């Protein structure tokens, strides 16, 4: 029906014989209509660049499918051919890395109770921000709390709490613990220097046989700094470790050494 437009217009006019002026308009209209493209209008060819685009996409699809499909195996979960990882880690200094680990470990393990603000939950979970247990020199007690958890009544900033904190000795490494304590001691206006990895290592070794959570009472009997008896002036770490190792029963020492060797 290519001539449909022309055929339609007269019939349109006959529809309204009473509308003289309209007639003229329709005639002008008809003139315009003749300039409408012919029905071929509906058959523009597919443009070349679309064909090219299709080709490029198909090529890319084949390439991606062939190289990032883990050979279509059921237990191949990584799309990367053999161990190749994604983006390289951002360059960061050891200090930056230590700080990042601290924040990450805190967000992953501590916020649920102690809150991102470090303020804890009144009556339930004690605050870390401004806490009189945090803002003291030496980390000996804090390291122990993180390693084995804490149970029973404890008074913090004059408020009594009675709850149970988990042990993290299996899930956090020495670096993690040192980093997270450093993070806690340097956030929310808390005071206190960094906690070193060696300190954590020493206390972990010293308390290797312990499983139960600490009580506040027990902790208060432990000197604030260092392991068993810190040598005054000596850097925490190597000397302290020696002391600790000497104090260990022989079978535990052997187990410890085996463990270190395995690493």
């Amino acid at each position, binding site marked *: 029906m290519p001539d449909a437009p022309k055929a339609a217009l007269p019939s349109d006019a006959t529809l309204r014989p009473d509308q003289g002026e309209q007639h003229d308009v329709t005639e002008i209209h008809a003139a315009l209509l003749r300039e409408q493209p012919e029905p071929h209008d509906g058959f523009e060819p597919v443009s070349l660049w679309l064909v090219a685009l299709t080709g490029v996409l198909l090529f890319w699809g084949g390439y991606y499918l062939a190289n990032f499909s883990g050979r279509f195996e059921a237990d191949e979960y990584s799309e990367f051919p053999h161990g190749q990882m994604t983006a390289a880690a951002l360059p960061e200094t050891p200090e930056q890395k230590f700080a990042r680990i601290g924040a*990450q470990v805190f967000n992953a393990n501590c916020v649920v109770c102690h809150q991102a603000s470090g303020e804890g939950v009144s009556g339930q979970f004690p605050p870390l921000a401004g806490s009189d247990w945090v803002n003291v020199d030496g980390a000996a007690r804090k390291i122990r709390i993180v390693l084995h958890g804490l149970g029973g009544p404890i008074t913090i900033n004059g408020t009594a709490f009675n709850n149970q904190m988990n042990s993290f000795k299996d899930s956090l490494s020495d670096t993690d613990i040192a980093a997270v304590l450093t993070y806690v001691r340097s956030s929310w206006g808390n005071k206190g220097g960094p906690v070193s990895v060696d300190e954590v290592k020493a206390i972990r070794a010293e308390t290797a046989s312990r499983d139960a959570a600490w009580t506040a009472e027990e902790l208060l009997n432990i000197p604030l700094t260092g392991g068993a008896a810190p040598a005054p002036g000596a850097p925490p770490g190597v000397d302290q470790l020696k002391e600790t190792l000497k104090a260990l029963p022989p079978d535990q020492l052997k187990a410890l050494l085996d463990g270190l060797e395995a690493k």
Partner: protein
Amino acid sequence: MNYGPLLFLGILFTLAGSWFGLVLLPNQQLGALQPNVNTNTGAIYPQPIPGEAAQGREIYRSLGCNYCHTQQVRPDGFGADIQRGWGKRRSVARDYIYQKPVMLGSSRTGPDLTNIGERQPSYDWHYTHLYNPQTTSKGSIMPPHAFLFRTQRIAPDGPSTNALKLSGEFAPAPGWEVVPTPEATQLVEYLRSLKSSVDIPEAPLPKSEE
């Protein structure tokens, strides 16, 4: 132009393609996965969750928790799931073989729960958090689930052992206590049963660094 049959065939064939590739093949590859037996310890993983937790799973489903909480950990290097402590390793198909329905979740309006049982084993925390998330997570947009708890008068012989430790603005009126209903208990048992830090061959736990 009258290609009805051609159209008909084409329509069926195209869908047959993905039905074959995205339904049949996955079923072929993953539909018969068996639990893993650890060669050293003989431990079997995964195992069906115990009864009360399984009932709790039904509560989890019926309340639509899966619309805000995922249960899948993305691999190291793709997202920060592992750094956020949501799991120690990526989730793999074997983790889910006993789940009906599988509630992977598609939105993280709240945090991932794959490993919540390990991350937060405290009953107190779970109960007070469910009762009103503001008690333990100030600023949370999770709805309170007070309808899973009962506020009752404290009996003459002292408060119930399972009464919630609520304080401040959340505490009930003096002489009253808040206790969990069986649904709340089941839901908490379920949440505490969510643990994924098990070494399996296709997704080993990372060797401890340093």
